[in-house]
């Protein structure tokens, strides 16, 4: 893992001390709320529906066991004993008191964490593949690039007041687990025909009220040119992005308005106009950072042990879990384990302090003291020996964290919705709970197979409904919550925006509506065909028919 150097540590401490003074002046009445609000937002502190909320950055989703324990302690000391892992690999605490926030930030600084740039019109937390560094299909580990970008974008003076927030994701695998087509900038680490590793630059993707699939801006950007090229790109956006209308201020709107070719020409011109660098500094810095991300020395198991778990073969729950919740690893005999924070009837992405401590202990015991947060609001243990899977699962199971539902219909993404969020128009979490409860039976989930349900409580789409195989958008109509269904969305390398099925459903109608969609899929599917494959083959029509069939 990347470790702070003395400058990082000193800087974060100074920011906490500065904010402590600002909070005190606010409490003393020396700062008005108008003056204080931008200061608190720069430190990740929002005012939500019921209380303040603080969003803590988890750079590219990587956490140490020590950091996870610190988050558990913060949940107990400053919140109500839990935290919410978000769709941008961050964590939010829902109930901090303003007077406690400086101490909370000090507790974060103790473990090299902070809440800087988790709000505001700046470059937000860089996100990445939760399987970075371990995925079997990886071309190169994206974490060093993500860390390079984190350092570059942290308090970058030119890019601290952009037209709007700016989100960057990096992946190093052909399989996209970082949703790079739905970010302001998505970077894919690729290998050129000549075998050189560099970046494919995707621009102008996003969700929100205007969902757009990003387009390729540069097919191949050599290493050493990344920061210069991104600086040129950001400069064009900073100059020409709309500041008159926040709903049209994201880079996706600019790219659409100009057309990608014209946008590319402007970026190329800005790049050509900037001082030329050899790229040596960037390459050297990337090499330095890369030393922090070397593969840990993993024990080698003899053939007898490598054969996998001899025990557990008769336990169908374990078999199900190991089928769905493990991913192929670079190192023979190892796998990455996904622990879903999707207990049936629970709140998607929420973890109690005791669950966080269990996860930290499991990371110490089984995964080199490291964890990852996924944009699907789950936790990954990246270095688990296959022969220890059963032992790990038994411990997770006894802590209520052993559900084998990763990627299944109950592994639902949901934003906080109207239960917490000041912007929400409808609740999202209770809908997730109701759907998960309806499909709780493991055999039924198994039969339905790979299916992502994603729920947002407003048009801003934090619950990623546009890219759910089944997307649900909660709105308010005539004083009631109602829910629109979209079908066929896809956050991966086969990116697609879901198509709206038709009129929305009330809170009581939404679960039966989802049942009808799933029922239609099961009728239509060919053998072993996933929901998305079936949808792509038959189109939306039969689903519409089942959703809106009138009883006769």
């Amino acid at each position, binding site marked *: 893992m990347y470790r702070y150097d003395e400058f990082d540590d000193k800087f974060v401490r100074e920011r906490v001390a500065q904010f402590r003074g600002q909070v005190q002046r606010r409490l003393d009445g020396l700062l008005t709320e108008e003056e204080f609000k931008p200061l608190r937002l720069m430190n990740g502190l929002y005012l939500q529906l*019921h209380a303040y909320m603080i969003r803590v950055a988890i750079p590219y989703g990587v956490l140490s066991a020590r950091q996870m324990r610190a988050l558990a302690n913060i949940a107990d000391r400053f919140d109500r004993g839990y935290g919410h892992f978000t769709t941008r690999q961050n964590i939010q605490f829902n109930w901090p008191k*303003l007077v406690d926030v400086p101490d909370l930030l000090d507790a974060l600084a103790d473990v090299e964490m902070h809440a800087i740039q988790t709000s505001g019109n700046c470059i937000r937390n860089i996100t990445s593949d939760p399987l970075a560094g371990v995925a079997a299909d990886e071309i190169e580990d994206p974490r060093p690039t993500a860390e390079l970008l984190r350092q570059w974008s942290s308090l970058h003076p030119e890019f601290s007041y952009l037209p709007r927030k700016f989100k960057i994701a990096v992946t190093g695998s052909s399989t996209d687990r970082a949703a790079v087509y739905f970010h302001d900038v998505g970077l894919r680490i690729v290998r050129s025909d000549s075998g050189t590793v560099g970046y494919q630059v995707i621009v102008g993707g996003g969700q929100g009220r205007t969902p757009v699939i990003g387009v390729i801006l540069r097919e191949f950007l050599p290493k050493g040119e990344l920061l210069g090229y991104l600086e040129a790109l950001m400069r064009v956006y900073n100059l020409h992005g709309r500041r008159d209308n926040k709903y049209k201020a994201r880079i996706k709107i600019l790219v659409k308005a100009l057309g990608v070719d014209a946008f590319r020409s402007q970026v190329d011109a800005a790049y050509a106009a900037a001082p030329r660098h050899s790229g040596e500094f960037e390459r050297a810095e990337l090499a330095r950072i890369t030393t922090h991300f070397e593969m840990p020395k993993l024990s080698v198991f003899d053939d007898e042990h490598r054969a996998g778990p001899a025990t557990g073969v008769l336990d169908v729950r374990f078999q199900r879990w190991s089928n769905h919740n493990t991913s192929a690893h670079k190192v023979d005999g190892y796998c990455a384990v996904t622990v879903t924070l999707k207990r049936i009837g629970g709140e998607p992405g929420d973890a109690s302090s005791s669950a966080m401590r269990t996860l930290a202990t499991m990371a110490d015991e089984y995964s080199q003291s490291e964890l990852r947060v996924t944009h699907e609001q789950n936790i990954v243990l990246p270095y688990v020996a296959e022969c220890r899977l059963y032992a790990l699962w038994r411990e997770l199971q006894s802590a209520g964290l052993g559900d084998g539902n990763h990627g299944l219909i109950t592994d639902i993404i949901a934003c906080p919705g109207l239960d917490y969020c000041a912007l929400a*128009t409808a609740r999202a979490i209770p809908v997730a709970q109701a759907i998960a409860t309806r499909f709780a039976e493991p055999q039924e989930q198994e039969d339905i197979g790979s299916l992502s349900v994603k729920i947002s409580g407003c048009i801003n789409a934090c619950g990623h409904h546009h890219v759910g195989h089944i997307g649900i958008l909660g709105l308010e109509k005539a004083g009631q919550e109602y829910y629109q269904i979209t079908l066929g969305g896809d956050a991966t390398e086969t990116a697609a925006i879901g198509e709206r099925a038709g009129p929305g459903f009330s809170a009581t109608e939404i679960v039966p509506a989802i049942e009808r969609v799933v029922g239609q899929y099961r009728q239509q599917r060919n053998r072993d065909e996933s929901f998305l494959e079936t949808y792509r083959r038959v189109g939306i029509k039969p689903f519409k028919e089942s959703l809106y069939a009138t009883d006769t």
Partner: protein
Amino acid sequence: MSAIFPMRSESPGRNFVPQVLTANSLREGHVVFLDALAGWSSCLRDALVARDEAAVQGLTIVLENGASAVVEPYLVAVLRQADGSWRPAAMRERRRVQGPSIGSEKSAVCWSGRAA
């Protein structure tokens, strides 16, 4: 105890909707309502309900002159219930008064004027 704002006796216009002034407390961030003694209460049942235009004007004065102990104050329309209590007209505001509807956060509701 007398209200700080005079309540006119004549009946308000037909389209008039009673209002309360809400905000979040500065130190803790909790939802609060302006009460009849110019304090801030966490219970809607304690709120000063402006039942005519003049009273709404009074709340607006508090709103515009800034209440330093609170954050982001605004007016909320409330409707009278059959039992005589008040509750917000808008779904969002009802949720804000009730707290989250899920898990351990299902909090004691004090907006009906009946709950503890």
